[in-house]
């Protein structure tokens, strides 16, 4: 930390020197001018709006270094040139519409003269009056600090996380909950890490596993699963506002969008270090010898909307997309909402409008373009096989041709021994397998005719404030962003590296907090999308820093791989804190209803995609294929027609593609699949850092009545009834419970379900037509009567509607 401050100060001083052209000693004679002539004027007329907490138009005039930088309209003065100094223009009242101060007493003519003289003499502002060189004291901007996990008499748990948590629990007079039972633990791990349920066999094996590392084995198996990337990739897709269509009125499909989605899943499965993951997505195109995949990665910022509405001004929506890139980048990596500063300096967080456009300028020269990239690895492999076969065939014919030609001593094209071979060769060449490539939307640095960035008045793209050119730079409250080549402007690659530099404490805190949030339901900073002064402070600040240091691999005894998400996830799920029971009790509800001190695990309704996936899974029809083009599962009638001018046709996919995981459902922005939206899947128009977890009647209607779910209920019934070894309804109820809830039923639950089965049977024997309608389309079951079969469909429908079924406990 000390080192950082020293570096920061040096840079500030260097910057100051560069901006004050003359050397310090040349100013001795004028050094009094500032104190006697200038400071009293600034203090009397300016500081109330441009000093202390108040920084109207991003300008403060009470601190030298800030004053020299200027405000949203550019520099306040140009040393040596009072005529072209904004300060003089405004206070002298040359433009009656722009006079400073806007209210109250104007500057006397002699005061203006004093200011002019001071500027013309070099605007020397002595060090002794430089004002506070305050650093923003807000916790999130401070450097990471390593804290030893608390130790004491009452040590609890397994790893350091537990010691941090337990210290807080004791502080609040709380005690940790006992470890959850094994059935709950394996179900929790499966849902958290891969978003799928454990099979009955998985549960049985884990419960019976007496090895001391049984739990860790489950964790390792799931972290290595190819479904891990689907689960954690989906979290990333929320933040990336990923969709399969353009958005806005026309909302045209983006048939290539899935290629980048698959890149995300692959990168997360490969545990690509988060710093690399960041750099490739923000600036893959700027890397030396960028690979196809690194260029593809930049599609992160091609998830912005595209407006092809007739008559839309393309420049307006280009600027709009750059706003989105600026704001999404800040939100995802820095946990800051810079959006306010698009129109005016941020009211709460120290982000000036000028700084907003400094960030914006990184994206202003990123052009939207396309790049040919290979399709999936599978298709490439198939292509390579086909191509090799084809090459062999060509080689064989060519060889034959050559040997035939060798027998002739003249021009041979029409010879009967040659002609057919020539034709065959031509035919073969036509059949050369095409390289499986796809044209993907990517971002590429504009080199021709680069754009100049200005602050846009109120964010209006037609109103650039041309007083000052904005150059790319980071935020002043964070460590300085230095271009890799100091003679060249910083670019997106510098920005990306700055975000993940070890000095930048925000990115690692924000990222560790995201991981935590997905494993406990709430972050250590509850406002995962706002680490600014209006956000909630961390409940466990030392733990957050400890996790952030672990994440970046700068940890005493740093056994964790730098920027490895999997390592961080493993560290957390191995803790006793994570393994606690989620059962509530009166004391917990009284003392910590929001569970901020973590005396228990959280119960959470699973996400919309997972609701679908686990229902299809217990029905035995979920396709586990990873990746590929987005699919079109059943959609209720009338939904696709809601899109503009009915320009969209939803043709239900064939075969297994109807039963792919929810993450692969084609996402049409203006008409998204209602099953997903009803369960709070974000609409992909803006970045989503934290999904809602609502609980509404429309959700009940989906799982009770929607075609996908009633189909799942029918198949679940068949699955249960077709198990010959289950000889009684009691056996079947037990199996259904184990399949759906990973546990055995209580006697109360068994008796309730048996009663439902028997009542349903009775109702259906009086309503055979209804029973027939219900079982229609199911596989015939020789050993079950019609009313049995129907009663079991009813029961299965209730199983997948249980609160516990769609809840991660």
């Amino acid at each position: 930390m000390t080192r950082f401050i020293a570096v920061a100060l040096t840079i500030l001083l260097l910057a100051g020197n560069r901006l004050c052209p003359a050397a310090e000693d040349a100013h001795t004679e004028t050094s009094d001018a500032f104190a006697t002539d200038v400071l009293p004027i600034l203090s009397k007329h300016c500081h109330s709006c441009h000093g202390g907490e108040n920084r109207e138009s991003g300008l403060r005039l009470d601190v030298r270094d800030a004053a020299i930088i200027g405000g949203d309209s550019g520099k306040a003065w140009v040393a040596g040139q009072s005529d072209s100094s904004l300060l003089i223009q405004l206070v002298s009242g040359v433009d009656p519409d722009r006079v400073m101060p806007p209210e109250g007493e104007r500057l006397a003519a002699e005061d203006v003269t004093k200011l002019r003289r001071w500027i013309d003499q070099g605007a020397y502002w002595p060090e002794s009056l430089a004002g506070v060189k305050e650093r923003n004291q807000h916790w999130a901007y401070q450097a990471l600090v390593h804290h030893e996990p608390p130790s004491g008499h009452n040590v609890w748990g397994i790893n350091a996380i537990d010691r941090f948590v337990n210290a807080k629990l004791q502080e609040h007079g709380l005690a940790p909950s006992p470890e959850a039972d094994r059935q709950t633990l394996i179900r929790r791990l499966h849902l958290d890490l891969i978003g799928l349920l454990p099979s009955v066999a998985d549960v049985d094996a884990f419960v019976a596993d007496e090895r001391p590392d049984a739990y860790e084995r489950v964790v390792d198996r799931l972290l290595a699963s190819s479904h891990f990337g689907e689960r954690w990739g989906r979290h990333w897709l929320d933040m990336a506002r990923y969709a399969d269509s353009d958005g806005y009125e026309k909302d045209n499909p983006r048939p290539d969008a899935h290629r980048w989605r698959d890149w995300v899943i692959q990168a997360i499965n490969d545990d690509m270090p988060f710093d690399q993951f960041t750099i490739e997505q923000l600036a893959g195109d700027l890397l030396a010898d960028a690979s196809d995949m690194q260029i593809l990665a930049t599609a992160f910022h091609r998830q912005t909307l595209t407006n092809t509405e007739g008559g839309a001004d393309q420049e307006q929506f280009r600027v709009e997309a750059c706003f989105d890139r600026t704001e999404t980048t800040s939100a995802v990596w820095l946990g800051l909402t810079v959006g306010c500063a698009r129109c005016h300096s941020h009211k709460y967080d120290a982000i000036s409008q000028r700084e907003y456009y400094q960030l914006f300028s990184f994206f202003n020269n990123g052009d939207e373009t396309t790049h040919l990239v290979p399709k999936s690895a599978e298709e490439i492999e198939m292509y390579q096989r086909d191509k090799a076969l084809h090459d062999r065939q060509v080689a064989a014919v060519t060889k034959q041709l050559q040997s035939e030609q060798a027998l002739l001593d003249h021009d041979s094209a029409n010879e009967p021994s040659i002609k057919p071979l020539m034709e065959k060769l031509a035919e073969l060449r036509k059949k050369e397998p095409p390289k499986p490539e796809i044209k993907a939307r990517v971002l590429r640095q504009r080199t021709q005719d680069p754009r100049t960035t200005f602050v846009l008045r109120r964010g209006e793209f037609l109103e650039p404030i041309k007083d000052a050119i904005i150059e790319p730079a980071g935020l002043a409250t964070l460590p300085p962003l230095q271009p890799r080549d100091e003679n060249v402007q910083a670019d997106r690659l510098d920005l990306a590296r700055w975000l993940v530099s070890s000095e930048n404490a925000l990115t690692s805190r924000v990222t560790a907090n995201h991981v935590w949030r997905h494993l406990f339901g709430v972050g250590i900073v509850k406002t995962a999308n706002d680490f600014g002064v209006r956000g909630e402070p961390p409940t466990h600040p030392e733990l957050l820093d400890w996790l952030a240091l672990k994440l970046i691999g700068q940890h005493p005894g740093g056994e964790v791989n730098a920027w490895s998400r999997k390592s961080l996830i493993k560290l957390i799920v191995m803790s006793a804190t994570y393994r606690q029971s989620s059962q509530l009790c009166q004391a917990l509800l009284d003392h910590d209803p929001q569970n901020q001190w973590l005396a228990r695990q959280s119960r959470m309704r699973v996400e919309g995609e997972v609701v679908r996936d686990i229902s299809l899974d217990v029905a035995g029809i979920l396709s586990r294929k990873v990746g590929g083009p987005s699919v079109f599962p059943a959609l209720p009638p009338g939904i696709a027609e809601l899109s503009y001018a009915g320009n969209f046709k939803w043709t239900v996919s064939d075969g297994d593609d109807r039963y792919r995981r929810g993450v692969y459902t084609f996402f049409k922005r203006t008409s998204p699949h209602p099953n997903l939206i009803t369960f709070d899947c974000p609409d992909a128009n803006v970045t989503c850092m934290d999904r809602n977890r609502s609980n509404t009647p429309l959700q009940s209607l989906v799982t009770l009545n929607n075609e996908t779910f009633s189909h799942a209920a029918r198949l679940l019934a068949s699955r249960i009834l077709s198990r010959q070894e289950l000889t009684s309804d009691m056996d079947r109820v037990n199996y259904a419970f184990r399949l759906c809830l990973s546990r055995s039923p209580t006697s109360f639950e068994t008796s309730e379900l048996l009663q439902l089965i028997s009542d349903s049977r009775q109702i259906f024997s009086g309503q055979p037509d209804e029973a027939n309608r219900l079982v229609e389309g199911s596989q015939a079951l020789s050993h079950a009567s019609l009313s049995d079969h129907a009663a079991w469909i009813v029961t299965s429908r209730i199983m997948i509607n249980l609160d516990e079924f769609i809840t991660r406990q």
Partner: protein
Amino acid sequence: MRSNEHKIELARRNFLTTSASGLGLAAVSAMLQLDGRLASPANANDPVSSTTNPRAVKSPHFAPKAKNCIFLLQAGAPSQLDLFDPKPRLNELHGQPLPDELLDKVRFAFIKKESAVLMGSPRKWSKHGKSGMDFSDFLPHVATCADDILMVRSLHSEQFNHHPGQLLLSCGRASFGLPTMGSWLTYGLGSESQNLPGYVVLTSGRGSSGGASLWSSGFLPSHYAGVLFRNEGDPVLNLSNPLGISAQMQRRSLDTLKSLNESRYWQMCDPEIASRIASYELAFRMQSAAPELIDIKSESATTLSDYGVERAQHPEATGRGNVANAHLSFARNCLLARRMVERGVRFVNIIYEAWDQHSDLEKDLRYNSWVVDQPIAALLKDLKQRGLLDNTLVVWGAEFGRTPLGENRNGRTANTGRDHHPFAFTLWMAGGGIKGGQTYGETDDIGWGVTRDPVHINDFHATLLHLFGLDHLQLTYRNQGRDFRLTDVAGKVVTPWLT
């Protein structure tokens, strides 16, 4: 289990204080009422309950005039110059170019400035009601309601493309991720209906530019999102039981579901389970309330014919408004809106995407106006006759208006349509505390700009909330560190509109 009085009391306390999704109180009332243990529903104005139950009726900031709103969203932007704002001078200047200084800083969606010329309106105009309000001959029925109507001719916006314009009109700003008007109202006031959603959307004809973003709850919880109703078949998505599940079977199944969820609740003590139970019970009640709502058989023959729900198609049905029997579904939607208001639905958004007449303005506008004219007039009169108009705000509005210039996009030989025009357009309102029989604001001789009493959409929203007893500056929601409002960073109440 049910005999355990102590546990129930504890549970009740938990619900009141800790439900994360907030349905806790409703859940406990539902559970305990069914158990016969709670005599009456909990006091809706109890501060605890109104913060925990997202549907609970909440007190506004001050006495409201309006309780419900029916918003007639005329998406695509109808021509105010041919319906509400007559411009004789425009007719005189027909065929003339506009002075350069007017065009200098203006952008158009399609018009080519170099060759653009003004286009008069062939409409016949007449004055209606005590105030002599202007209507063109295309809206003869609505014109008869002039004494209830406040005609605002001075609305302006800065968005001149459909989707951004519709977002501004719906959310107060042309950005995604924000709540729409109906979401703000149900968030601010709760829902009066125990069996139906508080915010309902009805559409006629083709899909709108804005699609689902026009009824999104944005960053507000999804309780406050608009629920799309269809006016035929299943009124709400997934409302009908799967084939083979009778009403009797459904109830029997839900009883077991409830019992199992309750037993889980007693074990886990998680108020979210109680919320889930309440959600299933409300879903079940919706299964009968929603079909009853859209079943208009009980309406008198006079009412049905007043709205025109069975009227014959217009002999010259044409254009983008003539899709999927819009003339019938729009009429039916107006009638359903009244039925919803009667049943306590807070906000009904009727969307008719039909008005984007870049060409063929005259015949398309004639048809679209015919589609909406009779049903809207019937709605206003029906509400009034039933004493509902006083507390039901009816709004006709669109994302912008249309240009006095004829549209001359490349290749056009004749001007038969108008382009998008956000600088001055017309919106009208009736009921719900609006002082009818007045025309507010003025545009210049050709309808180009506002010359008196300009009203931005943020001002309109501020006034709309005011009618519901809500101060637009106080109705806020903290998201990403900022307290968001429907009126973004502007908006002032237009007091001359109020009774």
